[in-house]
């Protein structure tokens, strides 16, 4: 770990430390991730050379774990922007140290969502035909549009609150870092005009990104539910996918927070109370996920339409039963057992529950994509699908590359928003006043903007 910085300001020094230089421990952590990434790239070059034949895909299972990864990664991306925007709008004070970590996940993981689609293309060389000849009747183009909108929006939403921090770091950094931060900070000096513009920008974006984020995963679900395939053609797929996305997103956020907390000694910023709040949110989402899953499967079971029943029983009692019940345990039993109990709702408990949810949600996406394809409506084909080492390597490479990028991000940008934490400290009085404003009667600290002279 970087030693104490010799800069004058001791305040928040621990937040500045990671971005002012790298340590050996960082490179030791990055090396295996880099190796796995390179391995994934190697596997992809094989696929480029020999075509999708190197995968386990076939007829009728023509989509496999690349599409699973696509849905999964886009889901993880809902961690950030959505949670941070909602908390900002609600003026939830506990958001201050966690928004940056969340927004960074969103932006970085989105690239892997897009990347998974490209991995899945038979002709990636013709990717730009989508822009050149696109037709918006295809749900795939809805994806292209909404993900581009989301990626742009969430990048801006990450960047805007970063500007004051970049200026703070700029004033402390040296060498190439100083040039980088000077460039990125746009000459931020904290003038009232700059503040006004920034705050307006953040406020507008916080409202705008919420519908965009919801639309993105809805549109992802529509890729499936616009078809006629059994158990895909479902009206609740939109909200079901959004729920799952927020669910896995919060889990990823908790894990990443625990990781940076430990790596950069941020115990005094990311406190058990933050984990507790997020863990409660995760618990709620777990229950909501269970509700949707139950409704989705019960209707298929009760209706008993032959094609749907084939898929349903393949999932529940057939070939995919181990994955299905593992998903139920990982997404529902473990998180609820751990998080509903105050004694286990600790930082460690939240991390264990989150890890379980991340794996469980990947399985959930897999179980949406594959069993339906393996059991098509006509009874003539029954598919078998097992990913090959190429697919597994590319997936592992993508996950490692994401983790690597996240590590690099924490080394380039303060992972806890410094100015927002400081604003929170200075704004204690204002927050107290706001809380007093919620209460009945004329509290001592009623907001100055609306004095209550009635009782005076």
């Amino acid at each position: 770990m970087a030693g104490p910085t010799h800069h004058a300001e001791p305040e928040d020094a621990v937040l500045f430390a990671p971005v002012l230089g790298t340590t050996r421990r960082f490179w030791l952590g990055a090396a295996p991730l880099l190796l796995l990434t390179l391995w994934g790239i190697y596997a992809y070059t094989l696929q480029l050379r020999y075509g999708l034949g190197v995968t386990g895909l076939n007829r009728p299972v023509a989509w496999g774990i690349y599409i699973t990864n696509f849905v999964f990664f886009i889901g993880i991306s809902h961690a950030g922007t959505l949670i941070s925007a909602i908390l900002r709008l609600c003026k939830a004070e506990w958001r201050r140290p966690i928004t940056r970590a969340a927004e960074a996940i969103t932006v970085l993981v989105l690239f892997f969502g897009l990347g998974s689609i490209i991995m899945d293309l038979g002709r990636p060389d013709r990717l730009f035909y989508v822009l050149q000849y696109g037709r918006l009747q295809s749900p795939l183009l809805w994806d292209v549009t909404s993900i581009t909108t989301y990626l742009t929006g969430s990048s801006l939403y990450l960047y805007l609150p970063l500007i004051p921090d970049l200026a703070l770091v700029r004033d402390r950094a040296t060498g190439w870092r100083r040039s980088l931060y000077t460039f990125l900070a746009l000459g931020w000096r904290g003038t009232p005009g700059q503040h006004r513009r920034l705050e307006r920008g953040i406020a507008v974006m916080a409202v705008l990104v919420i519908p965009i984020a919801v639309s993105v995963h809805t549109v992802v679900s529509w890729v499936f539910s616009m078809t006629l395939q059994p158990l895909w053609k479902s009206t609740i797929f939109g909200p079901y996918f959004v729920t799952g996305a927020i669910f896995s997103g919060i889990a990823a956020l908790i894990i990443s927070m625990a990781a940076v907390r430990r790596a950069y000694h941020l115990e005094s910023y990311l406190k058990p109370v933050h984990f507790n709040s997020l863990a409660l949110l995760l618990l709620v989402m777990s229950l909501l996920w269970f509700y949707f899953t139950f409704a989705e499967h019960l209707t298929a079971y009760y209706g008993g339409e032959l094609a749907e029943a084939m898929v349903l029983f393949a999932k529940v009692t057939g070939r995919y039963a181990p994955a299905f019940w593992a998903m139920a345990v990982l997404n529902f039993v473990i998180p609820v057992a751990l998080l509903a109990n105050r004694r286990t709702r600790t930082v460690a408990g939240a991390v264990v529950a989150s890890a379980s949810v991340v794996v469980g949600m990947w399985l959930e996406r897999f179980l949406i994509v594959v069993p339906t394809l393996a059991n098509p409506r006509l009874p003539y084909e029954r598919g078998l699908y097992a990913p090959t080492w190429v697919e597994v390597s590319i997936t592992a490479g993508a996950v490692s590359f994401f983790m690597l990028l996240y590590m690099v991000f924490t080394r380039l940008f303060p992972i806890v928003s410094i100015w927002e934490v400081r604003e929170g400290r200075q704004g204690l009085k204002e927050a107290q006043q706001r809380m007093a404003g919620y209460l009945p009667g004329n509290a001592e600290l009623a907001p100055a903007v609306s004095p209550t002279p009635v009782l005076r």
Partner: protein
Amino acid sequence: MERLWRVIPITVGGFAVAFIGWMIRMLQLSWVRNDSWGFTVTVASVVIPVFLVYLWLAVYVLGGIAREGRGPEREGRP
């Protein structure tokens, strides 16, 4: 450096304009092909306003901050 950081608002704004341009191209393509006109209009009417907001963000917020950053030294935050 002060000139250089103008790149950021210009890039963001340029991207927003390019995307709106692409959307208009899609409308044109759909009209010419007489194919999926309703879908294209619906998507365009939702997406273009969003990118106009991004454009506003690039010009007013990012551009404004950058402009003030280059200006004469003023009072810092009170």
